[in-house]
């Protein structure tokens, strides 16, 4: 397994947000992480990256224990994050956002621009003046530019126009076909489930279900996700 999380418990100050999360992503696998609002998806991702510290449990990346490492070292081991809420650098131009943290590999500026032509049009504009959707593309492009082994997308299609969203799902499928491992959080099940190889469902900070998307019956969907 590329990423293995087990027994993860995380606190914000005194209040506990995760109560034992189990999660794994294999090489070349696309894994969906699901759950209602506030169930701990983002917290799980933050814990993996060392942005918040888990208090118990283990996290392994490529077999190596990474809990306790600083965020930049974890990222350098090969995680590319597209964070919730985009978090583009507002005071950098689009191009600067893309190259600032880039690492060598297959993904280059040209390739990202080909994936999102809109970004190359807005190349020299500061990111704080981009539209919401443009910022989302930028965040994805920025993560790809670090050439990660594992790409983590936290609500990466939020706020995107349907055509663009289709482009992004197409991009995800393309990445998948090239063997890229991806962990995805997304609310649109109809688009997410077909791409995912496996899925995990969180409830109140715990993994309550995992398996193949096909096994996530509409009854289960109703129980855990309210649809």
């Amino acid at each position, binding site marked *: 397994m590329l990423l293995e999380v087990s027994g993860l418990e995380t606190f*914000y100050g005194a*209040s506990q947000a995760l109560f034992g999360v189990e999660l794994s992503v294999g090489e070349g696998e696309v894994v969906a992480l699901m*759950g*209602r*609002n*506030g*169930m701990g998806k*983002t917290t799980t991702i933050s814990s993996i990256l060392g942005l918040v510290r888990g208090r118990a449990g283990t996290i392994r990346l490529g077999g190596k224990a990474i809990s306790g490492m600083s965020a930049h070292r974890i990222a350098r081991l090969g995680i590319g994050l597209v964070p*919730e*809420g985009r978090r583009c650098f507002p005071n950098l131009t689009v191009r600067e956002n893309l190259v600032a943290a880039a690492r060598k590999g297959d993904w280059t500026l040209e390739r990202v621009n080909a994936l999102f032509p*809109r970004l190359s049009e*807005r190349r020299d504009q500061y990111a704080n*003046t*981009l*539209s*919401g*959707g*443009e910022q*989302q*593309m930028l965040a994805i492009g920025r993560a790809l530019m670090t050439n990660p082994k594992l790409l983590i997308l936290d*609500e990466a299609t*939020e*706020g*995107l*126009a*349907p*055509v*663009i*969203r*289709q482009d992004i799902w197409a991009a995800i499928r393309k990445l998948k076909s090239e063997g890229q491992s991806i962990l995805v959080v997304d*609310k*649109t*099940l109809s688009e997410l489930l077909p791409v995912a190889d496996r899925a995990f469902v969180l409830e109140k900070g715990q993994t309550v279900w995992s398996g193949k998307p096909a096994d996530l019956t509409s009854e289960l*969907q109703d129980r855990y*996700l*309210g*649809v």
Partner: protein
Amino acid sequence: MAEPVLSIRELRKNFGALKATDNVSLDLRPGEIHALIGPNGAGKTTLIHQISGAIRPDSGAIEFLGEDVGALGMAARARKGLGRSFQISSLASEFSALRNVMLAVQAAQGSSFRFFKPVMHDTSLTEPALAVLERVGLAQRARLPAAELSHGERRKLEIAIALALGPKAFLFDEPMAGMGPEGSKDLTGFLDGLRREAPILLVEHDMDAVFALADRISVLVYGRIIATGTVDEIRRDPEVRRAYLGEHA
């Protein structure tokens, strides 16, 4: 046909060479949900910003309840009854969810220069605020600081604040964003009822919601409105499909 509540005439706004709003005219009629859709960067948020007074148009007029509000600042327009939500949540992050909503209640009462009476004991503030939180399903989380809410919860709080203003028109900028599948379903139902309180200008990329809710849809592309019509008209419009909807129809 009833007089429009909100009426925008020939609005223009350039950012340098970019025509972010290019001669836009638009009406919001009583009781309707008017959806505004369009590709990313088409100028939807910029338009909402101009209507709410966050940025000034280069030219054009904005009439609200029959009055030209173009010269008014953001706060003054809100007092006139324009309630908006932000695409990217904008909250008083140290305040609890409750106090965020109470602030709106107090603003609606127009009484922010009272220096002595403690707000937390003021039922004329707390009760309406709690009621609103109840409506969006955040009552359980009322005492939590906004900073500690999850993303989706913060999005709900955005809507709660707009509700608490009791506005005469709503401007919602992607309210569905960040809602889980269940949240989207609930919110769709909720907005459906809300149109009876005040008409809604709804910017949204969630087409399921838009198609379920909208009385009319306007499509904004590169700052221009390329089409306005009913759900069916828009769904069938080839130009709209190409520029925006893709296979989603």
